[in-house]
């Protein structure tokens, strides 16, 4: 049977996949010559919308940047079997490398199976780990297997998973809870969304294995409200799993019973911190608790609870099915297995990249990501979101490993990798993150609440040309105090973007403060616009476009910008066809 499969994850839909789907559906007119279906996130977001053509289970053609206007030729190609009809929209061999260079474990089914179909998932080995476990393993065996695998928490902290599970198992409690942190709040990371949308059963399977290991009585998934499709797909998958006796009472005829529910978050970054997440689950303001006691002893409803993120659980089914040793065979001494990164920003090929630990940043950004867009220079890669830092070009050969990345001042984090080029202002990026953490600080502890605000104020001064000598030293002092004395991970890591940009890009800070210049030409307050008389042809386009009438000049004579009136919006530079507008 020939099949047309459309990638309909959030990215695909935002790029217009549904229009393609409807156009093909209309042409099919109810015919059953071939099948039209959908899959989740294929992970090559830079090529969306993507349409895959299958013959039975074999992918025969992958089409990219597909629009509704291509529906005719696609249907024609599938009907006749003459795939040359769609050669013009076929993926280029060098773009295929983006996937070929990856090793997919957590994302093993993403973009391959139909996330709405349990049959599809089971045919691809879904729940094989659960079945194996129920038939042959005790909870202690499971914990031992996870220990062998070396799996560490993929949400950012990198804590050994087996240790948390074991602690939750050992601690006494009337009820025990297994919680999934799907409150993926780091700007620049979206792998968890992709997993839930594209392979919800992998999450259910991983959580069931964890629940069995710790002896949980209930499973709760805390999902961001901003991920509506993820919630819909997970709800459907839960219903399917219950129907198939994979979830609920006496799972697969065993005496293991556990059910699952979804709790939609209400929008607070700090709820990614595990104790704040628990407070939020209990219906309260999401403010972190003092640790210890750790959630493994006293968590949700004061009972032993285990919290891992989506990517961590997504690895678990594979590990149990294939053995912990197979997972540990990948990676480095201290960091085992694979890690998923969301590669975005000024990189040519953006999308989801899953590779074994131990590859270098250069492998990911230049090898898989194809380097920097528009022929620009690489400046830095931001890893770990607001808790992470910016890694400069001379450290591109750093390997992906918890320790090695930590040594740069950044962190592995949840896997956001935002690439920046020469046009990105580094003090500006530090300010961007401090704007974020200052507004997301819950306000419970003083160092974080006031410290982030003060750092934000100083950075705002610097980027608006009001920086003073000594500001950088003051920033460093504040950063260390906030790092050392905040209550939770949010405050302890909030200074990282500041510290790393000062460490690697001190010259940019100095240029802002001493010379009132922004080397990246991004801080509008520090820019001056003028017109090069030699190049200006007097076409009047800029004068017409200027929203504040700051540009004057006769037709066919050089124009002049009045710096007093100019609001530095950049529209003149955009419209000038002769490159006559100079920005300094």
């Amino acid at each position, binding site marked *: 049977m020939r099949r047309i499969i459309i990638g309909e994850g959030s990215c695909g839909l935002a790029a217009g996949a549904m229009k393609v789907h409807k156009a093909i559906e209309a042409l099919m007119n109810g015919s059953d010559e071939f099948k039209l279906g959908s899959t989740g996130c294929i992970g090559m977001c830079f090529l969306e919308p993507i349409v895959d053509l299958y013959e039975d289970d074999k992918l025969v053609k992958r089409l990219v940047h597909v629009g509704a206007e291509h529906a005719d030729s696609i249907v024609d190609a599938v009907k006749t079997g003459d795939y040359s009809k769609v050669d013009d929209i076929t993926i280029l061999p060098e773009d295929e490398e983006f996937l070929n260079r990856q090793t997919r474990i957590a994302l093993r089914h993403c973009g391959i199976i139909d996330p709405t179909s349990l049959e599809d998932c089971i045919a691809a080995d879904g729940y094989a780990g659960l079945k194996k476990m129920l038939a042959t393993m005790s909870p202690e065996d499971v914990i031992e297997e996870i220990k062998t695998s070396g799996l560490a928490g993929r949400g950012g902290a990198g804590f050994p998973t087996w240790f948390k599970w074991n602690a939750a198992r050992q601690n006494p409690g009337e009820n025990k809870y297994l919680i999934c942190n799907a409150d993926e709040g780091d700007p620049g990371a979206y792998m968890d969304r992709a997993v839930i949308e594209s392979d919800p059963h992998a999450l259910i399977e991983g959580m069931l294995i964890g629940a069995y290991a710790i002896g949980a009585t209930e499973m709760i998934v805390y999902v961001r409200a901003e991920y509506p499709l993820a919630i819909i797909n997970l709800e459907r998958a839960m219903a399917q799993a219950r129907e198939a006796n994979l979830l609920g009472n006496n799972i697969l005829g065993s005496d293991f019973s556990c059910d699952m529910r979804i709790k939609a978050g209400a929008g607070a970054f700090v709820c990614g911190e595990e104790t704040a997440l628990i407070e939020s689950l209990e219906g309260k303001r999401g403010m972190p608790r003092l640790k210890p006691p750790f959630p493994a002893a006293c968590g949700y*409803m004061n009972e032993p609870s285990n919290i891992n993120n989506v990517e961590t659980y997504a690895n678990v089914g594979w590990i149990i099915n294939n053995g912990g040793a197979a997972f540990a065979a990948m990676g480095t001494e201290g960091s085992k297995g694979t890690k998923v990164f969301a590669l975005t920003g000024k990189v040519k090929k953006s999308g989801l990249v899953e590779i074994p630990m131990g590859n270098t940043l250069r492998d990911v950004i230049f090898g898989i990501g194809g380097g920097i867009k528009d022929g620009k220079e690489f400046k830095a890669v931001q890893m770990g979101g607001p808790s992470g830092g910016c890694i400069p070009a001379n450290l591109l050969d750093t390997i992906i490993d918890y320790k090695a990345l930590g040594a740069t001042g950044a962190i592995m984090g949840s896997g956001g990798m935002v690439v920046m080029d020469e046009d990105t202002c580094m003090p500006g990026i530090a300010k961007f993150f401090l704007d974020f953490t200052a507004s997301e600080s819950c306000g419970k502890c003083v160092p974080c609440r006031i410290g982030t605000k003060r750092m934000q104020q100083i950075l705002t001064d610097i980027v608006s040309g009001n920086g003073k000598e000594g500001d950088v030293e003051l920033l460093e002092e504040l950063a260390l105090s906030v790092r050392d004395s905040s209550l939770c991970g949010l405050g302890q890591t909030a200074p990282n973007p500041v510290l790393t940009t000062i460490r690697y890009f001190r010259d940019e800070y100095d240029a802002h403060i001493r010379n009132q210049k922004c080397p990246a030409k991004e801080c509008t307050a520090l820019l001056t616009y003028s017109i090069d008389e030699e190049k200006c042809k007097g076409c009047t386009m800029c004068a017409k476009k200027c929203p504040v009438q700051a540009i004057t000049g006769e037709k066919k004579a050089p124009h002049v910008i009045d710096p007093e009136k100019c609001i530095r919006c950049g529209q003149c530079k955009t419209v000038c066809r002769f490159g006559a507008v100079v920005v300094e």
Partner: protein
Amino acid sequence: MCESTCNGPKSDLTLLENVLKEYEGVPGSLITILQKTQEIYGFLPRDVIYHIAGRIGVTPAEIMGVATFYAQFRLEPIGKYLIMSCQGTACHVNGSERIFAVMSEYLGIDNGQTTSDGLFTLEKVACLGCCSLAPVIMINGEAFGRLTPESVIEVLKDIQKKEGAL
């Protein structure tokens, strides 16, 4: 009942009855109740907050504490179309500030405000998770990616045309 609730507009509290019946005795369900309340009324009207407080046995202050902590909850009504302008890192380095600025200028409203015809509410939000399509906005749950200052205005105009406002 306090004075401030008597002076404001009256909400139809019967709409909330099923939600309250379902969650009244369930511990830790305040956020869920508020989410369902917002689904019904579009925001959290003051008199409804007092009503919930009375029914589930917490103080209105406690509910306000939760309602103001989370970004999702609103205390004012919003427009028919909620525009969420992503300010995540990938969107930031791809020019999300400019996208927000042109929308703000075109609609004549600032962050968190609603147009006078009640059609649009404009809001800056944290990462929407469509980073590879940056810069991104989401309108009533539908994401629009790879925007330019020109194309984002087209998106708004399409809605205005559909609503007969252009």
